[in-house]
Every structure is written in C-alpha cells, then in structure tokens.
C-alpha cells in the first residue's frame, strides 16, 4: 500500500502519521510539499494534523488553497481514498470535499486527552477492522474540533450512514460528558458520499505504539492497509 502525506507549512503531525503508516504497511509514505502541483500515483492520500498556516483566519482556510490541493481534490473526486486527521479534516471541509465546518471548541480552550469513540459503521475501507458499535480509545489534541453543519446536512449524514465515529463513553453510550468540544451529535468523524474520503478529529497515530500507552491506533492503520491491499 503506497501512501502520500501532504505537508503544509505549519503541519506538525506529518512525521507521526508517516511512522504509523510505515509500521502498518511496511512502506515509507512519500512526503509531498504543499507547493508541488503533482505527485506520484498512490493508494491513499493523507492530510495530517498540525497548524497549517498557523490556522490563521480560519483553521485550514489557507491550506485549502495550496497548489497541491487542486491535485488532491481532483484525485479525491476520482475516488482515490483521502484521509484527513484533525487539521487535515478541517482542510477537507474548507476544500469542499466534506460538508460542514470545524468551529472553536465550546470550552474555548485547547483540549489534549484520551477520548473514547464509537465506531458507527464497520462497512468502509477505513473501519473494516472494527465491529459497528465497538468503542476505541484515541487521543484528541485540538482547539477547533467543534463540528457544525445545518440540520438537514446532519440528517443526511445520519441517514446515509456517513457518520464514521462519535465521541462516547467506554460502554458506547453517547453523553455530553464524553464530548470534548461540543460537536453536533457527538460527531468525531464523517465520510463523503462514496465513503472514499474520511475526516476525523482524533489522532489514531498517537496511540499506535504500546510504549505510548495504547494500540487502538495500530488497529485503525492496519485495517486501512488491509482494505487497500
């Protein structure tokens, strides 16, 4: 499985996701600088976490207009699997590849801690390693993870099974206490119409090593590599 990781000025989780992808697939992903208009053919494009352009104006706003994003959008619209983690999810919404927007956390504070996420559907190349309804422990680390979309967009996402993960208690129940940022309906990650594009706020790559205290991230990346083989 060959992956490309897009690097914007201000990205700072590009190395972390590259390490997780290499451990899961055995291949080093190609790192693509945001100014490049094109890059080699790959099975997966990853937009990593970080503070692209310092998250000035709006998180992900300026990164979405980088030269490389024209090519990322073109491939995503052609069905190339495209994964946006944290800042990457924000860039995908600004680029119009995913609906809605990520607003400032309800607490107005940056939040960095482990959260539990419920897998809403096992039917996708990103979640085939999980059972629907299962919960995993992943860390979050963001200032603007408060997902917002208007009512009918939320209803469509729900109806078409395009909500990938929701913040939940360890037993899978949905509570406000489990929601770290005020996201609508505890949404932590969503798909596009064809489920080839996924955006999620949690960082599976930060718990993909027992030395760091967890391996639920390993399951995510291994499952993804398996699905794309």
């Amino acid at each position, binding site marked *: 499985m060959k992956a490309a990781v897009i690097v914007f*000025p201000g990205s*700072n*989780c590009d*190395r*972390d996701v590259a390490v997780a992808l290499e451990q899961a697939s055995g291949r080093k992903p190609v790192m693509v600088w945001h100014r490049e208009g094109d890059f080699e053919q790959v099975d997966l494009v990853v937009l990593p976490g970080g503070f692209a352009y310092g998250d000035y104006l709006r998180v992900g706003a300026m990164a979405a207009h980088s030269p490389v994003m024209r090519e990322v959008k073109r491939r995503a619209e052609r069905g190339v699997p495209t994964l946006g983690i944290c800042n990457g999810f924000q860039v995908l919404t600004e680029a119009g590849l995913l609906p809605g927007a990520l607003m400032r956390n309800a607490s107005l*504070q940056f*939040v*960095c801690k482990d959260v539990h996420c419920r897998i809403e559907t096992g039917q996708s190349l990103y979640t085939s390693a999980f059972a629907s309804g299962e919960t995993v422990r992943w860390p979050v680390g963001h200032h603007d993870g408060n997902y917002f979309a208007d009512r009918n967009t939320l209803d469509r996402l729900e109806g078409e099974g395009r909500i990938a993960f929701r913040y939940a208690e360890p037993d899978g129940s949905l509570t406000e206490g489990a929601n770290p940022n005020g996201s609508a309906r505890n949404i932590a990650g969503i798909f596009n119409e064809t489920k080839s594009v996924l955006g999620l706020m949690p960082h599976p790559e930060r718990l993909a090593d027992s030395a760091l205290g967890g391996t639920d991230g390993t399951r995510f990346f291994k499952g993804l590599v398996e699905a794309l083989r």
Partner: protein
Amino acid sequence: MSPEITPNLVAEHGLTNEEYQRILKALGRAPNPTELGIFSVMWSEHCSYKSSKRWLRLLPTEAPWVIQGPGENAGVIDIGDGLAAVFKIESHNHPSFIEPYQGAATGVGGILRDVFTMGARPIANLNALRFGAPDHPKTRHLVGGVVAGIGGYGNCMGIPTVGGEVNFHPAYNGNILVNAMTVGVARADKIFYARAAGVGNPVVYVGAKTGRDGIHGATMASAEFNSDSEEKRPTVQVGDPFTEKLLLEACLELMATDAIVAIQDMGAAGLTSSSVEMAGKGGMGIELELDRVPMRETGMTPYELMLSESQERMLMVLKPEAREKARAIFEKWELDFAEIGRLTDTGRLVLRMGGATVADIPLAPLVNEAPLYDRPRAAPPAPRPFGATGLQPLTDPKSALLKLLGSPDLCSRRWIWEQYDHMVGADTMQRPGGDAAVVRVHGTQKALAMTTDCTPRYCFADPKIGGAQAVAEAWRNLVAVGAKPLAVTNNLNFGNPERPEIMGQLAGCIEGMAEACRALDFPVISGNVSLYNETEGKAILPTPVIGGVGLLEPGARMATVAFKEAGHLLLLVGDSRGHLGQSLFLRELHGREDGPPPPLDLQAERRNGEFVRAQIAAGRVAACHDVSDGGLLVALAEMAMAGGIGAELEGLN
C-alpha cells in the same frame, strides 16, 4: 555629557552614574543615544548578570558527559551513540505580568530559539509558573492568559509540553513568574556556537521583520515594577509561532549543510546582543548596514532597530560561498533573508545607516568589562523556631488529607496540562502528572526524563537548605521514573539585589545548589537570572527553579506513580522524622509558615536514590513516587488516585 545625553536619559536606561562614567572611559567620548542604548542593554542585569556572576562561579559545571556548560545559548550533554541533549530554562516574568498571553507565548518562542540555534531539534517543553493568591483580583486573568499563551505557542510549533509545576502564594501577587524550559536533541558532532570567525564573512539576518516590539525588554526585565507599571506599557513583544515553525525547519535544513560559521537567536536586546556576543566571543569586529534590516514599520531609527525585540529572528555568519544556497532554503520556507553586514578585525561594532556612521563602539569593554558587583548581603534571619506545642493533635486525618489535596499547591493540574498538546511527536512515554515526564529520542530506544522543581517557602526560611533541596528534589524525581540524572539548568528568580537581605537569599541559595550539585554529580550546564521581581519593596519568595534532565538507556524500565495491582507491597525508602516546619500541612491546616525547612542529608539522598533506581532497573518496582509537598499521606493518596487502587497501612501508630 553631550547635549543629547541627560542624567535623566541615563537613569531611564537603568544605568548608574558610575556605570555611565565607565562608558565614557570605554568610548573616550560621550555616547550618542544609540550607543547609550546598546551599553544599557548589554550591561543590564539580564544580559550581564552583574549582580549574580560573582556567585554563579560557585556552581559546578563539569562532568564527563558535559559537552558545553554555561556561556552559550544553551547547555549540551552527551547522551551516547553520538547524540547530545541540549537544554535551558529562561524567564519572561515582567512581560507576562503586563500581557500574560503574549508574555508567556514569546517566552516559549525565545527559549525554543535558544535551543535550536545550537543545532538541536526541540523535543519537549516544560514550564515553571508562580502566581499570586488564587483570590487576588488579577490571578485568574493572569493564569488564564499565561496557560493559553504557553499552549498557543507550543501547540502550534508541534513541540509537546510535557511537564513543569505551578505554585500560588501572595508573595507573587504583584510579580508572577513564568519560566519556560526546552529540551532538544542534536548530533554530538554537529553543535553550532555563537563564536564568529573569518574576516569578511557575511552577517545574515533571517526570520520575521523588525518592528518596535518590546523596546527596553532587556532593561525592563531588570526594572523593578512600581504600581504605575500599567502606564509604563512598552509595546509588548507579540509572538508568531507559525513563522517560528518555518524558522526552525529552515535553520535545521541549513544546519545539515556546512554553510554556517556562527549563529545566535535574537533574544532580549535583539540585534544588539546577537551581533555583539557573536563578534565579541570570536574576538572579531562587526559592521552592520542598518538600512538592509527587513523592517515592518517605516521610519525606524538606529536606536529602535538595535533594541527592538521583535520575535522569530536569527543572526548568522555564513561562509561567503554558501550565501545563495542559504538564501534558497529561506525562500523555500518563505522567510526574510538579508545580508546586513560583515565581520572585521577591528574589534569594534560599527553601525551605518543612510550613509552615516551611527555607532562605533569597542566590543571588548562592551562584552568583558560589564560592571561586576559584589553587593553587600545580610545573612537571612534565622527561621522562627517551630512551636510544636501550639498544635492540637490530629484527630481526623481523612478531612485533613482532603483539605490538603484540595489546596492550590497540591490539587490536580489536569485543568492546565490538558490545554497543552503533550502527545504531538508520538514519543511521549510518560505524560504530565508523574514525577518526571519521559520523551523518547525519536528513532532510538533511548528516552530523556525531565522535570522542574523548587520549593520557594523552604528557600525563604533557609536559602542554603532551600537551594540544595531544589536540586535534590529534581534529582529524586528523575530517579523515581528510573532515569540516571545527568545535568541541570536553573532559573534564579529573586527580588532587588540592591537590598542586602535579597542578596543574602541569592548567595545562600546558590551555595546550597552548588553543594547539592557536587554531592549528586549533577552539574549546572545553563540557566538564567531574573532579578528585581519586586513591587513597592515587596519581593517574591526566593525561587531558584531547577530544570533536571536524566537518561533512560535502551531497554531501561520506566516507573510511574500509579499503583498497578492489589497485593503489591508498599516500601518507604528513607527515614521519616515527622518534620513539620515549613510544611504544607502546617500552612494549609493551621495557617502557619514558621519553622526551618526539613534538613537535608545529601549522602543519604544519593544512597537511597541509587538504591531505588537499581530496584526499578531490576524490574522489582511496579510504582514509585517521591515524597515531597504534603508528605507521606499525600504521596500515597496520589499513587492510589492515579491507579484507582487502594492501600492499607499498618504500623503507623
């Protein structure tokens, strides 16, 4: 005095008349305002350490693993396999009181630059904070701003903020303390220094443009605050972490080549301290064309350009043939790159603007002949004897424990460090909340343990014991996670040294620190001194913050605080003498701050510590915690809460 220089202008620059006479002798004439400004920042307490240098010499700075001790931008120690750890701690106390968010943020930005200017990639940040009483009207605003500023800058840079400490005490009501520490890793054979060399080599300015930010930042750092400091609001330095992230990557990319002869970040006193120190350390001269300095504002004067403390800027001396290669790298990262001068052999700092020479100063007196003071010091008053008689016996330990655990200095700090990204980099092996943070050296099986420690109330009661205890506690915290303690950086925060009792505190703390560093083989390799932390004659508690770094070799076991399993035995190492003087128990439950601090037996400290580390290494230890603030009961409660497992204690009759 020349017509432009008035006694008032000299005083406003924080210079005494005697110091002004030294300038006249060094120059052989009266200085112009730009030259006066340059002398004032270079001879400020912040840059020259004039009141503390005499005592800093007492600190041991050598050990087989020390590559570079105090005197450079940061200290360097050997951690094996051709790698080095580079670290330092620095204070941004005064700016953080005026504007907490930007003051704290630029404090983080400044210490990061001190580390990566040595060629190291920063891998972790810590911060030691002191605020006034929680119910003081300003405290809530200051805490919120400082924590948001530290997180705002560090998180955006992608450097995990993994540890530190925070205390609350009325003595800090008018003067908070914000000490920021950075630990980086570099190749031991690729360390970069500030010493300039090579006549004619180009002097290059890189990074953000220069504005009128924080002029007098250096002298302000030494200026005692009076209550109208609200009006004395210099344009505070504003940080841009996004530009600093680009500057970090650009510098590290250039450092991978052999283009750089010397490099230094523009910290306090900006262009002045960087150009003077680089040339001075190399015994060279330096000429700068100020018109070529990238400016953010129009009409800036030589004075403003030389004293501005705009952030995210570095000064470098390059090999002439490497100019274009370097320019290309900085343009890739969309940063300013301007050749603003060259090295000479005149041993002088010569500044030109608009075709005229605007300053011409001999470097030797500026760098080496800063005034040095052996200020009078009064032995601190003997601590009030501890009157145990007045204490009623403890009838309800449960409510006493709850009160202690709920007190500001012992309650959970989760609400602070959950605002810091402490996991970015995916190498954080021990998160905040333990005795020390542990961060893996990327791509290796080694890890660095790091902590900051100081108990200011001990230092106030007995500076010598307090100083030694701060070093011992940092050493003990590193041992408690299974690491081999290696070296220390320190941030000495004190009041006005012109008052003998403050000088007595400073001298006493340094003497105690030196004794402990020697006894524990724990040398000081970098640090910072922040004086004049005082408002209307009321000084802060003496606060010598110790930043300790230790090493976990590949395969070494790491210990954590949490109880792991029912049935495990509890072992207390070291004897307990029931010392209550200066204890949090006495303060929080009886409102008393009398008595001496607990005595310190450094030989026992070392013996016990090495015993504990050996047990951890042998795999016999499931959990380990140092007994410090709050005593044994609090330590056990912390271990139980961390693991969600209880404990039974017999034999406590």
